[in-house]
């Protein structure tokens, strides 16, 4: 009996030693590549994006530059299937970072996907309901029972639900047709759908569409765009996460500089779905700084919480999502301090007004 006890204690000791050495043994080799997904693609699936600091970072090669010295490749994904495709990709462990609209982000979280929100990717903007040029509709009510185009499962669907609810309607009052962003524009032009929320200016210039109504500035209607890192990657390579965030914040600063406006919007327009005219017109009422802000301020947190509530209200996810512990601002804060940009972007309160 004594012998066995002795053997056992040896074994336990050895195990304990193994436990101690294990973390050291598996620590910190660098990944070969960092995989980042855009929840969207350019017209015809071209690998380009626009409208965010991540898009600027991609277009200007900022992350490639940052990681060149380490031999780490940046692998970009442009998901034609938008936000829902990004969720599938992440569930299959194919990506480490992604930009995401609020609805697919929350839907993914509700099914148990583990990621941390580390950066804002855009906010505010105008909301425009567009109809074909020959449409006889005067109000939304005239479109009852007609076809509305929307990319289902993307933030556009949630925004549409908000707009419909304000007018006393639900999705069920219309025929919702799921189409991707580029096809929505094409279908408006051909009259295959009777209306959609989209940027209209290029279509108007071509004489194929008109605005039914426009909501200029409404911080409770527009949603925030998001950038997250998978928890597994964050745990393994926190220093790399920091460098990614810092590099993107630098691009956010560049994208917020009014001197770069024309160059920036032209660059973003290269993806082809939202044209230069669309950007120029729909962004002219805003300072770049307002819309590009990477901050995770009170407004950001409140918008995410509101969206979580709405996803539940509109029954778009089955399980509840808890915001606690989801948003991780430390990388952003370090980046802001390092780049001396702590006061560059205005902080907004929960209602979307600048904090004094």
């Amino acid at each position, binding site marked *: 009996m004594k012998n066995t006890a002795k053997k056992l204690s040896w074994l336990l000791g050895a195990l304990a030693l193994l436990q101690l050495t294990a973390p050291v043994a598996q620590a910190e080799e660098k990944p070969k590549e960092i995989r980042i997904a855009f929840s969207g693609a350019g017209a015809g699936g071209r690998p380009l994006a626009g409208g965010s600091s991540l898009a600027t970072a991609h277009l200007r090669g900022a992350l490639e530059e940052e990681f060149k010295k380490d031999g780490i490749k940046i692998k970009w994904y442009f998901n034609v299937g938008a936000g829902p495709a990004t*969720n*599938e990709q992440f*569930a299959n462990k194919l990506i480490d970072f992604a930009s995401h609209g609020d609805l*697919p982000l929350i*839907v993914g979280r509700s*099914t148990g*996907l583990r990621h941390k929100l580390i950066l804002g990717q855009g906010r505010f903007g105008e909301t425009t309901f567009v109809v074909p040029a020959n449409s006889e509709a005067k109000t939304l009510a005239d479109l009852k029972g007609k076809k509305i185009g929307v990319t289902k499962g993307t933030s556009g669907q949630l925004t549409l639900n908000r707009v419909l609810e304000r007018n006393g309607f639900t999705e069920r009052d219309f025929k*919702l*047709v799921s189409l991707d962003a580029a096809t929505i524009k094409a279908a408006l032009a051909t009259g295959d759908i009777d209306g959609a929320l989209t940027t209209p200016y290029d279509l108007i210039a071509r004489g194929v569409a008109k605005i039914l109504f426009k909501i200029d500035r409404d911080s409770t209607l527009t949603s925030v765009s998001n950038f997250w890192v998978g928890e597994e990657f964050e745990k393994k390579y926190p220093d790399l996460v920091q460098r990614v965030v810092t590099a993107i914040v630098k691009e956010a600063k560049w994208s917020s500089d009014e001197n770069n406006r024309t160059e920036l919007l032209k660059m973003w327009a290269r993806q082809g779905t939202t044209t230069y005219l669309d950007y120029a017109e729909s962004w002219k009422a805003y300072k770049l700084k307002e819309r590009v802000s990477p901050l995770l301020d009170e407004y950001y947190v409140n918008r995410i919480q509101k969206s979580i509530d709405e996803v539940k209200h509109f029954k778009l996810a089955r399980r509840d999502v808890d915001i606690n512990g989801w948003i991780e601002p430390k990388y952003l804060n370090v980046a802001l301090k390092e780049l001396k940009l702590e006061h560059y972007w205005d902080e907004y309160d929960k209602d979307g007004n600048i904090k004094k």
Partner: protein
Amino acid sequence: MTNASPSLAHAPHHGRVLQPASAFISRAAAHVGTRAVGLLLPLAVLYLWQTAVDREWVAIQLLPPAELVWQSLRDLWQSGDLTSNLAVSLSRIGWSVLIGSAIGWLLGFLIGLSRTARAYLYPSFEVFSQFPVIGWIPLLIIFLGIDEALKIAAISMAVIVPVTVATFKGIENIPTRLLEVARVYCFTPRQLLLRVVLPAALPSLFSGFRQGIMQAWLTLVFVELLASSEGIGYLMVWGRQLMQLDLVFVGLIVIGVVGLILDLSLRRLEACLQDWRHDNKQEQK
């Protein structure tokens, strides 16, 4: 050791009870044997599915557990969403089969009955039948848009081919002696059609119709995956967009079950038709 004796004592008694039971079971087993073997593969798949879920071979978000699929199926059934979407799908099938088989029969009769029509039409038809329906869709979208017309047109096209072929073959295979008899009796074309051609070709007509419906069902789902706002295919797209993959599985199950029911009942009908025709022949003798 002492434990063994009571069970031994009971053994003969058990045996007597068991014998008829086991005989019954073996008879029953023999009866359902062939069907039971057929069940093995689905059961194995179900087991593999469950194991894959338990061991998380595939992310839980992408491969939902079987219970969840069953649960969603029941929920959708109870809320009426399943039946309303199924009704939409079935009405699409109805219209397409109506249009497709009308055109198919017309073509089949023309080609089958008239040498001239055959010379003009059959080569083109043969080329047409080589294209899969999916290949037509980009072209159809340009002319018909993405609306109901596209769906009905695409599904109808899938129906036309088997119906035409079966009709044409049915007429072609009518025994020449029947036609000769008709000629001897100086049947009018109307009489020839109603008394000889139709009854003789009826089984192939029906089998073409059955194939047409099955083709329609298979094409339907693909067409509904394109832009649509209702139907079984739409239900599946919707499920995928909101990461409720159980809805995709529910869709698959419904498609399978409805397809099976359609096929079985049409086969049954076909068999009845054959019997009826047979009986008629007997009477005529």
